[in-house]
């Protein structure tokens, strides 16, 4: 968590940190404070008739079994998407790190998916997975597999997990690759000369040295799965069938943007935020030690 070697002085670091803190103050904390305030009110869409209700919005949410079920579902979703996206990306990055021909081409091709406009990528998945017209969906049904994520909750969850993980693999890949490339070749050569074979070398040298990157990606992936998957899930299943693919962020968006229930959606966001902060704090505690050296 800490470095041993540092520089002295305090004026310079404070100046260095000031730009980001200022921007953060204006564009995060000020709006966030308003969101926290809103979470303790009921108001109409236009902010008129604002009534302070204390923690009523929170207690209503936590007393609702459907909401609590969504929390569990979201946790499962986040873990699955992160594991899938990170695992696949790591495997691909390891292969792309080798001294093989066409390395640059593979790298470029694997990063492209990240660049597709989000609005379009959801539509593309529909074109691929739709039970009746999809490139994969149609053959699946023809083969006798009853593929229909409009009615089958498990298939729906699988669909949104795959689509969400897909988007993140490129992101993870690029950082894993950068992390692997930052490992000094000297270290790897030394290990190789010591006789360490591929998998063992990976386990004892590469992977531990990747720890800072892995930790970073773990945090980012969980945040992504928790917050940024709204568009994907909404385009594919709208949260259905039933509530089988409704994660917390869907409900936040629906209540905030569509139903204009500012009080409840703010409260939900606060809960979501506290949850993710808690998870990340735990991560820092447990993995923070391994992150240095």
């Amino acid at each position: 968590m800490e470095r041993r070697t540092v520089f002295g002085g305090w004026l310079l670091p404070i100046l260095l940190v000031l730009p980001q803190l200022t921007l953060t103050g204006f564009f995060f904390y000020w709006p966030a404070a308003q969101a926290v305030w809103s979470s303790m009110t009921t108001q109409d869409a236009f902010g008129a008739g604002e009534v302070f209700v204390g923690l009523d919005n929170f207690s209503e949410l936590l007393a609702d079994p459907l909401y609590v079920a969504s929390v569990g579902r979201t946790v499962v979703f986040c873990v699955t998407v992160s594991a899938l996206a990170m695992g696949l990306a790591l495997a691909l990055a390891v292969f792309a790190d080798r001294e093989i021909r066409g390395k640059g081409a593979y790298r470029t091709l694997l990063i492209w998916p990240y660049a597709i406009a989000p609005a379009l990528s959801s539509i593309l998945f529909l074109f691929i997975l739709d039970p009746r017209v999809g490139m994969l969906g149609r053959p699946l049904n023809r083969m006798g597999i009853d593929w229909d994520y409009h009615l089958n909750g498990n298939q729906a969850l699988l669909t949104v997990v795959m689509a969400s993980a897909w988007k993140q693999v490129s992101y993870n890949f690029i950082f894993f690759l950068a992390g692997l490339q930052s490992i000094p070749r000297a270290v790897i050569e030394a290990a190789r000369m010591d006789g360490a074979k591929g998998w063992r070398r990976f386990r004892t040298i590469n992977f531990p040295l990747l720890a800072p990157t892995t930790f970073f990606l773990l945090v980012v992936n969980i945040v992504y799965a928790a917050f940024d998957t709204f568009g994907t899930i909404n385009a594919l299943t709208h949260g259905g069938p039933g509530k089988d693919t409704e994660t917390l962020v869907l409900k936040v968006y629906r209540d905030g943007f569509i139903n204009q229930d500012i009080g409840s959606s703010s409260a939900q966001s606060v809960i979501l935020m506290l949850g993710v902060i808690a998870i990340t704090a735990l991560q820092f505690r447990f993995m923070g030690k391994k992150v240095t050296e």
Partner: protein
Amino acid sequence: MARQDRDWFAHAMLGLGVVLFALPVWLVLAGSTQDSDAIARGDLSLVPDLTNFSAYPRVLAHGTMGAQPVWHMLLVSLGMALCIAGGKIAISILSAYAVVFFRFPFRKIAFWSIFVTLMLPVEVRIMPTYSVMATFGLINTFTGLWVPLIASATATLLFRQVFVAIPDELVEAARMDGAGPLRFLKDIVIPVSGANIAALFVILFVYGWNQYLWPLLVATDPGLDTIVIGLVKMIGVETQTDWSAVMATAVLALLPPVAVVLLMQRWFVAGLAEGEK
């Protein structure tokens, strides 16, 4: 020979990866050459019609409806993406450096207060952010498009991780050379982080490039339309969509991010060489 076997396996795995992940990209490319009506019926084929590139001149000349030429939107998107990527990297390097290499009062609080900004979704902040921007008179301005978007913490977190892992020997060596903290930052820290800076630049550029919700909200002048907004404007809801035009525009929209990726390829290797001191 063992080495060649391993290479063959690597190629196979990477090839499979490309097929799996680049499939949707391929679909967009192929779709841009096919007939819109067929696509609307669900007949999107993996095989492009190599005789039919008519969607491209149509899209470039006609533009999207709303009378914004594609080149103008590409320009706006480019400016926005560069400002966001550049801005984020610049301020994050400074903050991460300060937090990692110094001990100053409130250091931990500074880091955590930056870090926590990851945790609140944009959708929630968006209305209050709008009123903040209104207060500064930045609604419907180019500056308003990107300034709120550089206030996030991903880059700072990454740089913190990278900086923490920099070997002590390097710092000692610099100290003995009489280098001050700023020289150290410029001459050692930044080059050593080259690969990560490159990766981050690509990611942030694409992030800025694909922004939709915020530019949509803050800009009303069609002159500030980004290419992504232009793309969504072409996708019909409850109406016919000219799918090949949509996909052709998407391909055009993909080109600058891809160019950035290609440009950054060099840096991936450069950072490596420097790190071998």
